[in-house]
């Protein structure tokens, strides 16, 4: 049970908030694609023959690739890995890349899940974030995509400076009306060294308002839960049967292979990350070398990661699993540290599993940190 993530490091233009790795020059597309295929082959034994259940094209903007190029990569996986019969194959796509024609071709390919970067249905928000599409395209694409794909996720961003609660309500309404079964929604975060950080520092864009983000998150949870969506991870909402299998693997500590510049891999005990530079990446792969840095995770690290990701999900953190995987001391410690939060109604214990309450969801970073095992 494993997944493969393939990073497509190209974008038409840079969104002001984005700190992922990408290049806006497509000149190196050919050599990068060649290198991605080669990396898939070089690393084919790394997962020890585990079956591949999900393939995920992330970025960057994977929809910049032609459908043939995508098929070529999927084919390379199929040939070199053991893949289950009906794997989840997700393509992250931007609305401006999804013409009706394109959607039809994709629907005829093995790609069976679309993750569409809508972000907002309001022009002013899209402009502020420097997205490549406009509000009209955002609405149109959902109409087309839902005709050809059942499994669709869209991204929506809240907490954008100037986004009123009414506008946010409208964004949620449009998303629900489109009938998509999955929504990933993020608070706008000012990451260091982004254009947005620069604008905020210069006062061109006002600072992101915590209270606004919190209100809008609550609106989102209430609206979506009332429409049968399950908030299965802090930022992810899906109807039953439509959770992202690929992303769930990250939170449950399953192994995955990350292909492409800046992609991360995890095999249960070691985490690796590829170099964040297209040229360095291509050169290394051409020389049959993996441009990867690897860290071994201690039991303590793995416990901490389980706490951190587990508390964000609907599956919570299981004391039984902690005891089995990390040892009884860890389970005892987690239980002791969690007590205070149970008393404050931020966590609740059920069937030996701690989960965050609605109020607690906002504070899981601090709670997780408090349950961490660290040495001074």
């Amino acid at each position, binding site marked *: 049970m494993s997944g493969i993530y393939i990073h497509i490091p190209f974008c038409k233009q840079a969104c002001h908030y984005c700190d*992922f790795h990408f290049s806006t020059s497509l000149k190196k597309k050919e050599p990068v694609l060649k290198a991605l295929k080669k990396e898939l082959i070089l690393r084919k034994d790394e997962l020890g023959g585990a079956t591949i259940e999900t393939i995920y094209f992330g970025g960057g903007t994977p929809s910049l690739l032609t459908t043939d190029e995508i098929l070529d990569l999927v084919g390379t996986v199929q040939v070199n890995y053991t893949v289950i019969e009906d794997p989840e194959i997700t393509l992250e796509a931007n609305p401006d890349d999804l013409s009706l024609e394109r959607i039809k071709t994709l629907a005829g390919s093995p790609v069976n899940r679309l993750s569409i970067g809508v972000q907002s249905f309001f022009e002013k928000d899209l402009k502020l974030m420097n997205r490549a599409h406009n509000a009209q395209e955002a609405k149109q694409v959902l109409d087309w995509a839902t005709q050809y794909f059942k499994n669709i996720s869209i991204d929506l961003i809240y907490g954008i400076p100037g986004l009123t609660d009414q506008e946010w309500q409208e964004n949620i309404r449009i998303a629900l009306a489109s009938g998509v079964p999955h929504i990933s929604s993020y608070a706008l975060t000012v990451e260091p060294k982004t254009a947005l950080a620069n604008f905020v520092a210069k006062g061109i864009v006002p600072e992101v308002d915590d209270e606004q983000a919190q209100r809008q998150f609550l609106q989102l949870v209430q609206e979506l839960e009332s429409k049968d969506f399950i908030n299965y991870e802090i930022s992810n909402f899906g109807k039953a049967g439509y959770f992202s299998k690929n992303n769930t693997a990250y939170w449950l500590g399953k192994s995955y292979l990350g292909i492409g510049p800046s*992609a991360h891999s995890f095999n249960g005990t070691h985490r690796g990350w590829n170099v964040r530079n297209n040229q360095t990446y291509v050169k290394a792969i051409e020389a049959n070398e993996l441009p990867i840095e690897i860290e071994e995770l201690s039991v303590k690290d793995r416990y901490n990661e389980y706490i951190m990701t587990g508390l964000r999900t609907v599956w919570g953190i299981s004391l039984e699993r902690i005891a089995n995987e990390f040892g009884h001391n860890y389970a005892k410690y987690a239980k002791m540290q969690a007590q205070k939060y149970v008393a404050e109604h931020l966590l609740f214990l059920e069937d030996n599993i701690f989960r965050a309450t609605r109020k607690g969801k906002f504070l899981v*970073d601090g709670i997780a940190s408090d349950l961490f095992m660290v040495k001074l």
Partner: protein
Amino acid sequence: MKHIRNFCIIAHIDHGKSTLADRLLDFTGSVTEREKQDQLLDSMDLERERGITIKSHAIQMEYNFKGETYVLNLIDTPGHVDFSYEVSRSIAACEGALLVVDAAQSIQAQTISNLYLALENDLEIIPVLNKVDLPSANPEEVTDDIVDLLGCAPEDVIPASAKTGIGIEEILEAIINRVPAPEGNPEEPLQALVFDSVYNPFRGVETYFRVLNGEIKKGQKIKFMATGKSYFADEIGTLKLVQHPKQKISTGDVGYLITGIKDAREVKVGDTITLTDNPSTRPIAGFEDVKPMVFAGIYPVDTEDFEELRSSMEKLQLNDASLVFAPESSAALGFGFRCGFLGMLHMEIIQERLEREFNMTVITTVPNVSYHAFTTKNTQEILIVNNPSDLPDPSTLDRVEEPYIKATIITKSDFVGNVMSLCIDKRGQITNQTYLTPERVELSFDMPLAEIVFDFYDRLKTVSKGYASFDYAPIGMRVSKLVRVDILLNSQPVDALSALVHFDNAHTIGKKMCEKLKELIPRQQFDIPIQAAIGSKIISRETIKALRKDVTAKCYGGDISRKRKLLEKQKKGKKRMRQVGNVEIPQQAFMAVLKLND
């Protein structure tokens, strides 16, 4: 005796004392290559890191001059005002002193006060102009400064560079020719001055002494006159890089003594060693019981570690007799200790040693000086207040006295205005202003010691752009209008944050403390009001807004490692916090009052 020379080095921090000492050892062949380490005389790690000599030591060299072998005892002196008593005893053990002055920076306040000490003890002063090889050196001008100060001839000043070896031979020659040989009577009963002691975990306390009269032999029964305690001289010897045991140490010479003493407090610097049979009747003048100047509470971060903290403090005290402590309890912090230190540097050193050597994470509370309080009930009875919470209730308080010091500051004439306004701001009264040279001014102030404790050094450095040196000496107690400013967090008084301040500054300080604490205490899940109060009157208020959201939006494959490390760091910070009521307070918040102007 005529072949013995006892000398010390007087220098400002960074003027090259330790390097010069190394060079002398080198030149006289007292060090083999293997033993060479930079700044040999500083043996504690902490000393080497901070580049200051905390504990003085002594070392013996032999030097052949004109066919005769001389024994040169170099007695090292600490270079910080916190340790000025130890300096005075080291000086008392010598006949001569090298006055080392940096050829670029000229004479500093610390150097002058130690020089006066040396002159009071009739020491022969050999001025050394160090670092003459540096491009920034200003030898002519600095030589003039030295000549003005000492009234010596310009030729008496030896130009040197401890780094390159220039002038070392001339210095050795001057020590032999100019420093008088010790005087003393070998026939008189033993009188030896204790000028230092060092704790050795295996052998107990090693006492360093200088024999003034008589002699000491291995195995004799000796007596420390001030403590009245007697021991057997199990081992005596001279100090080279390693100890050289000897059968006897004669008049005029310097040596070490091991008696199996396990507690540093039994050996007091300045005490006189004599023999139990045929004892001397007169102790050597100048002995003082060193008194702590600054007090602060030290508490374990984790209340359960109290006993461990006690045992760590006891061990520390075995080798640092100037540390005093007594258990106290705080409503906010539980059980801990009220500790007395020689000064702020000493306090920092103790805190760091607790962390490094004993792995104890501690909270140090706002330091204060020792006050005298008098109540209306008995206006003559002194109540010693070493902790703000011990100040009697204002309704029964007659008056409070606080310790004053005479502060000596030497600075460039350009900064006189700045330094004066700082000192006046610190409740100082100027008593003297002397131009040492047209550019260098010596200012004297009478100031409350407490003001030195509160961010004085840093501000002095800032207002003088680093061109000011500072020294002080206590001048007794004076009546002051002091009040206690209390801090309330979430409406609960936190006694460990209380401070005694002058009435006129109370409002400003209260306000700044609230602001500083707002900055230092992390947001928690509820609003935290911070209030400053005098008695029941609130003088300032701030609120730390509740934290309602800390979760970050995305957490995918590429985010997990970075995010884990971030939260681990957060947890480490949290482990160093102390929960008071339901508010978590970080370690450094307890010292906030010291950083009010940052």
